[in-house]
């Protein structure tokens, strides 16, 4: 099964489904052009109190901050809106992009003296295949498909507008929230499941 350009497939991150297995990170290394380098992140939010993990691919901003701050004009977007790794001949390894990205995506690769980042597996998506991370993701916290497929099979509203201070950022990649008007899902939040504040009933059981 391959997607065509007309299908306009989207990439969706649903952090609530992430199981922290790192299949995405491991698979990213295996994408043909990545050659053993994982270009995405997976972080434990606060392992002391939760197994919540956060997989982070590039959000592919419509007007990418990383490109705005690049003094060498080394970061380019494809026609399809994919923000690419820094062009090797231009990149001066200054890490402005690493610091400026509101999502913490770009990585400075010291041994290459170059910034590399998630390119949405251009070699795969350009041929209609899913990116490696969304292909393997066991829980489908990372998801790739058409809007119709999403609406038919998944729940949760899709959000792609973010505010960082006064900067408004619109991204190509979507994240999932329960309620669009409530803003991004607070993955550390309580109140959704009554047991979560006291998983073992320690307070309930106290004499």
């Amino acid at each position, binding site marked *: *099964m391959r997607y065509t350009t007309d299908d306009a497939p989207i990439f969706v991150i649903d952090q*609530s*489904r*992430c*199981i*922290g*297995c*790192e*299949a995405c*990170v*491991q*698979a990213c*290394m*295996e994408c043909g052009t990545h*050659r*053993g*380098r*994982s270009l995405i*992140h997976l972080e434990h939010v606060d*392992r*002391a*109190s*939760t*197994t*919540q*993990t956060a997989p982070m691919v590039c959000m592919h901003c419509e007007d990418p901050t990383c490109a705005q701050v690049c003094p060498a004009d080394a970061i380019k977007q494809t026609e399809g809106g994919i923000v690419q790794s820094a062009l090797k001949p231009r990149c001066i390894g200054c890490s402005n992009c690493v610091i400026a990205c509101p999502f913490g995506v770009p*990585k*400075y*690769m*010291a*041994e*290459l003296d170059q910034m590399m980042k998630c390119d949405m597996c251009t070699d795969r998506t350009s041929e209609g295949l*899913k990116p*490696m991370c969304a*292909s*393997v*993701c*066991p*829980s*489908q916290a990372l998801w790739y498909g058409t809007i119709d497929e999403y609406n038919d*099979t*998944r*729940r949760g509203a899709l959000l792609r507008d973010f505010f960082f201070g006064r900067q408004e950022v619109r991204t190509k990649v979507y994240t999932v929230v329960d309620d669009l008007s409530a803003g991004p899902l607070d993955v550390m939040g309580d109140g959704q*499941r009554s*047991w*979560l504040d006291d*998983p*073992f*009933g*320690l307070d*309930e*059981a106290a004499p």
Partner: protein
Amino acid sequence: MARPPVSEEELVARYGPHLNEAPPGGWDAGVTPDRVVNTHCCFCGQQCGIKLKALDNAVVGFEPWYEFPFNEGKLCPKGVKRYLQGNHPDRLLHPLERDSAASGGFRPVSWDHALDRVVGEVRRIQATHGNDAVAMLSGVSLTNEKSYLIGKFARLALQTANLDYNGRYCMVSAGTGNKKALGIDRASNPWSDIPLADVVWVAGSNVAETFPITTSYVWRARDRGARLIVQDPRVVPLARTADLFLGVRPGTDSALFGAVLHQLIRHDWLDHAFIDAHTVDFEHAAAAVTEMTSQWASDITGVPASRIEQAAEWWGTASTGMLLHARGIEQQTKGVDNVLSAINLGLATGKFGKPGCGVTTITGQGNGQGGREHGHKCDQLPGNRDITNPDHRAYIASVWGCDEAEIPGRGIPAQEIIEAIHAGQIKGLISICFNPAVSAPDSNFTAEALGRLEFYAAIDFFLSESGHHADIVLPGSLHEEDEGTSTSGEGRIIKINPAVTPPGEARRDWEILIDLAERLGRGKYFAYTSTREMFEELRIASAGGTADYSGATWERIETEMGLFWPIPGEGHPGTPRLFEGGRFYHPDGKARFHGVAFRESAEVVDDEYPIWLTTGRVVSQYLSGTQTRRIAGLVDQYPEPLCEMHPRLAERLGVTEGDRVTVRSRRGEMTLPAHVVTTIRPDTVFIPYHWPGARSANQLTNRAVDPASKMPEFKVAAVRVTTAGGRTSTTDARDLDLTEGRE
């Protein structure tokens, strides 16, 4: 005496585990594969479809197999990196003989020498001590064909009764419970039923780490509005978003299930028509739970009574529901009781044999389902037949072309084999695909037992820690080096295709066994030239048995993306969902309720050992780690065992994150870093078991077994925890690699 020939350090220096980091030629080699092979992951019972890319005689990478219906391309990190077990520097390339003077403790020998030595020692031991003094231990990462062959090899070539398999440490409580209650040992449903359930209840299964792809099935149900209940001593990753969490104390699952049945009866959330028409002995189950109030169960399990009542209401009032259980409730001295009390909940509410309804185990090992059906269990013959049943014996004798009397009787199960070795009753051992030095309980005892063998031959592709004890090591084959079938946890028979041939002088496992049979003078029973011939014989041998494969062909298995047994006869479509129409597999067609009284685990906490220990797995490692401890990316993810404990316990012990602690049980002790997390019960510590020697959690576990299934109690032990001094950084080393870039 089969003691390691040289120090552990020397063995590790020569035979590993070393880490394979990159495909052949390195990441920048840019190789173009000359073929892509549709096959399956070699690890857990989900048996995800995967495409292996090969060039010359090397596996160089993988590609998701989107068309395979079970996983549609999805893989966990073990599946992603599984191809790196090939072209590995630790791969055994020659037969080896123990020689403490040789570098690494073994010298390479010829196949003739190695096989003749094995045969000579087997004959010597059997002539002196009887045939059963030689045992065989096998494993269910092997294909159906090899499992079948080993069952026949042990009985007709070794002529010993004492063959058992490593499922004894995995699925056997589920199998025993299923047979007692339902008359058949198979998953009740295909996984496509999970999304149809209105309630999904996961009991004692860390699905996210041990069956990661199953998570997507649970979410498909939740996307339809299903409720998720998770029962576990830890808030495992799947539990984090569950609608209801039942944080049970280790070893109390049947009390919880009993209390739920009590509630179902009390509120009349019962399917009386189903109970009347399709079951017997409901009154026994009901009588056993009369006193099991939710408050009583709460006192035992530590789960608030209100949550037990909530679980009962959701399960009892939902029109569809699936209860999935795994090692958490099964690896106990009450494993079978726990399974039976879970099945009671399905039978009481009529949740069997309908879309989205079932109570099923999630089989752990790659071919855990198929491997156990075809005769390398100590009490079974192919087709799930009973080795003590005269009709079954006669039928298999007719297939094998032997006299019925030539088939030995029932042997002893794996843990008893190890005990018998320790006691000096079993003197010789052949093992394949089984690493008891790491995976058996009470590992100090296991090492002592292996050291007492007069002769031990191990068939291994990497030198396992059990292989350290071997007199002869026979280099066998990896999953991707042989052709055959396996049967996934769903009961789906799938096709394993070879991508490469064994390197060096290594041989396919079945070729080694056939050669041994020949040299033992029993070659007439083993005239196979391919694994396909074994499958064709297996079809006949299984015909008419419960696990009937007679209608399955390799061609149909590939074309139809798997076939669900039973498939009695040519053209049969297979049986994805069992028990449709309320037909169970006992002779009267009815399921059995069982009255399950609660009893404590073999060992309970006391003043000396006041903390519960439970063991399990992490997502990046598989079982005893023989394969996964040799793959760099997986080792980076979770390099060494950590002792998970709640901050309340840590505070009482004066321990903070990363402090080294010593955990002691009545069997042994180990020192390891503490991992302080609120996601575990404050009275319980958890340690994953994938490592050998001083890092083995099984130094602490208890050899006590379930009386019916003979499953050891890996999930419950009593320990004492003290600070050991010193700290270890628990920072993920890969975080640094990622920012610095990997060399």
